[in-house]
């Protein structure tokens, strides 16, 4: 299970990688492996406001359609347009080519409620027990 150190995680298996006031958002390796082959990603629009722990995107796989919650609140500044033609990027490269969107962080204090790599790792291990 790949869990990079350079980002923060939610219990719903989203990640946020922070660059200044921008956060890249995606789903974790654990999430993509649980969903199976991903067939479609319904992304928000640039300019949409997303709120921490609230609906921001939909992932559809051969098994299920699942909501993706925003790890942090903010305004969507860009979406990963590649995913429309290549939903498999989320399976193959969940932390890089398979990112979902970027936001301009509006409440940086929210970061405190997210898990770091070590905390998320033990959280995921707890799930499989």
């Amino acid at each position, binding site marked *: 299970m790949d869990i990079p150190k350079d980002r923060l995680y939610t219990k719903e298996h989203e990640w946020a990688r922070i660059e200044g006031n921008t956060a890249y958002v995606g789903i974790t390796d654990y999430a993509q492996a649980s969903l199976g082959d991903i*067939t*479609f990603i*319904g992304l928000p*629009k640039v300019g949409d406001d997303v709120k921490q722990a609230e609906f921001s995107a*939909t992932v*559809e796989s*051969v*098994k*299920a*359609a699942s*909501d993706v919650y925003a790890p942090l609140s903010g305004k969507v500044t860009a979406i990963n347009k590649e995913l429309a033609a290549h939903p498999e990027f989320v399976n193959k490269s969940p932390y890089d080519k398979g990112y979902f969107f970027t936001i301009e962080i509006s409440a940086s204090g929210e970061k405190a409620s997210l898990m770091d790599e070590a905390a998320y790792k033990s959280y995921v291990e707890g799930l499989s027990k």
Partner: protein
Amino acid sequence: MSYVPHTQEEIKAMLKTIGISSVEDLFGDIPRGLRAGSFDLPTGSSEFEVTRRLKKLAAKNATGLVNFVGGGFYDHFIPAALDALVSRSEFYTAYTPYQPECSQGWLQAIYEYQTIICELTGLDVSNASLYDGGTALYEAAMMAVRHTGRNKIIVDSGVNLIYRTMLYSYTSNLSVEFVEIPVVHGQSSRDGLAKHLDDKTAAVIMQNPNFFGAVDDHTDVVERVHKFGALAIASVYPVSLGMLKSPGEMGFDIATGEGQSLGIPLSFGGPYLGFMAARQELVRQMPGRIVGATVDMDGKRGFVLTLQTREQHIRREKATSNICSNEALCALRAAIFVALVGREGLKELAENNYRNAEFAKDTLAKVSGLEVKRSSPTFNEFTVLLPKPANEVVYRMIEKGFAAGFPLGKFYKGMDNYLLVAVTEKRTKEEIRKFSDSLEAVL
């Protein structure tokens, strides 16, 4: 499967096995007041008695009238080959025939239906069909609401009132706002549209030909709609597309319509056929199912349900629509109908409708007191102004053997003296002349 009900002995044996004394005991948990009482059914009748009774009731319908009624549903010829093919048990008795390993024939038929709808409408993708023209239009409106994230919908009042009523009732508990643009001289009003079109508009809905029969080129309307980031939806009459500019050519994003005119008999209550086609980028918002072509592990061409994710299987509460089904047998009729008449045949069919209607216009124009409205070009349906209420005239014409048309006062205020007359390829010159003579006598 046997449909013979259980015998008294079988019922007794089953009751004994589960340890209760009567069928009534099975419903013991339901308070008596909520249980069904006696259904008070008469004793059974023999097959002969039932047939005689039903025939007597059926004879009350006036089925032999020469038909000039349209209003969204049209009296077209249906070739005998169509019924013969559709009644094959492989098609007729199959239930949810979508398993690719055993339903290649059915899946191919639906794929061909979708291809036909795409070619007729000039759009990229068609679904496997919907219930009828009205539900298809409602689904299109909701696609636009989801796609744009807006909730205002502008509807031209030339859209069939049945469809408008369905739009309003389906959305009565959703936060969708409708604005109706009144038609001017039977045509969609560009000024009316400009007044209401804004950046809160999700969609603009037009019908072509509109309810008064008027044919329009909505290219300019669509351009304006797109400037505001809204979607343009067209409700169309498929037979007319044999000669008219398609919704795709006009730039529309979604086209829907009633497919009854493609080989489905007129009947009170259906089943009819809703069709829907859209641009590729809207495919994920489409309700229902889509059949696609693919290759199997040996590289042979085959057909599968490509898109069914909006339904119960995967998306469940996230589904885009409650539509989990389609009108497979009616869609098959449409596909066979178009295949039977062919590309050139469909053009000829449309042209014959148009020519017959023009002949009827010229003939009726000679009836004293009757005015044929000619403010717009029409396809096979047009409006006439009568010197007395159209409703009255229709009743008098039934006595003469004609279903004379649709009295527009039923749907539009202040139009009591207007009659909507449809003339399909089935109407002969002789019928049209007699129709005209009878009108002359009645007025």
